[in-house]
């Protein structure tokens, strides 16, 4: 009896669910890690693994089948050029799902799903993000200090927040 193996419907009709899964798989292949809810991560996992299997095969027919499923040709190129060769010696289990907290609003459990072996890429990404954040913080700080100095120079009677917009 095949009880309890129906998979995930995700509250969508067939076309909507297929679109969602194609979008998720394409994003994961391009970004190497995406954050989503646990059921979506689990539902997309077999599709990603099938795509990676196509990427490992690497022939024209496989490429056409991947292109029929993935949303962008960039994703197809990345799948066949970098991701397929990376998993050459591994038979399945290409993904990692780690639960990471709860969504505000509906309390759904969130998780990130990432390709194994993408730690280096992701660390570089995070490094870049944190540098950008630090730069942004420094710029805001500088702008605030300048605004404050200007407000002081104009007599200090005007409030610092309103001083800039009146000019």
């Amino acid at each position, binding site marked *: 009896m095949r009880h309890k193996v129906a998979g995930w419907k995700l509250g969508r009709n067939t076309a909507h669910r297929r679109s969602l899964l194609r979008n998720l798989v394409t994003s994961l292949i391009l970004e190497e890690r995406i954050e989503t809810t646990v059921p979506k991560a689990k539902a997309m996992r077999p599709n990603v693994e099938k795509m990676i299997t196509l990427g490992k095969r690497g022939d024209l027919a496989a490429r056409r089948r991947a292109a029929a499923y993935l949303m962008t040709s960039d994703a197809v190129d990345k799948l066949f050029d970098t991701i397929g060769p990376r998993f050459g010696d591994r038979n399945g289990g290409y993904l990692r799902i*780690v*639960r*990471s*907290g709860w969504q505000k609003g509906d309390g759904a459990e969130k998780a990130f799903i990432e390709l194994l072996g993408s730690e280096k890429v992701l660390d570089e990404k*995070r490094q870049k*993000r*944190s540098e950008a954040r630090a730069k942004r913080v420094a710029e805001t700080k500088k702008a605030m200090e300048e605004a404050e100095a200007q407000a002081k120079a104009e007599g200090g009677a005007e409030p610092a927040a309103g001083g800039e917009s009146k000019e």
Partner: protein
Amino acid sequence: MPNPKRRHSQRRTSTRRAHDALQGHSLSECPNCHEKKMPHRACSKCGYYKGREVLDVEEKS
């Protein structure tokens, strides 16, 4: 249709509910920062899971 014959006393109600209390989660200890965390999940305090920093935990400025 059958109906209740008598009203329940407050005591009877609260006696019945004495066993209805919710249980807390069983928490495990984060091996990195030693805070309590939910098992099988990334630590919400330091963002570590299985010996690797996996999440960006926002620092409050």
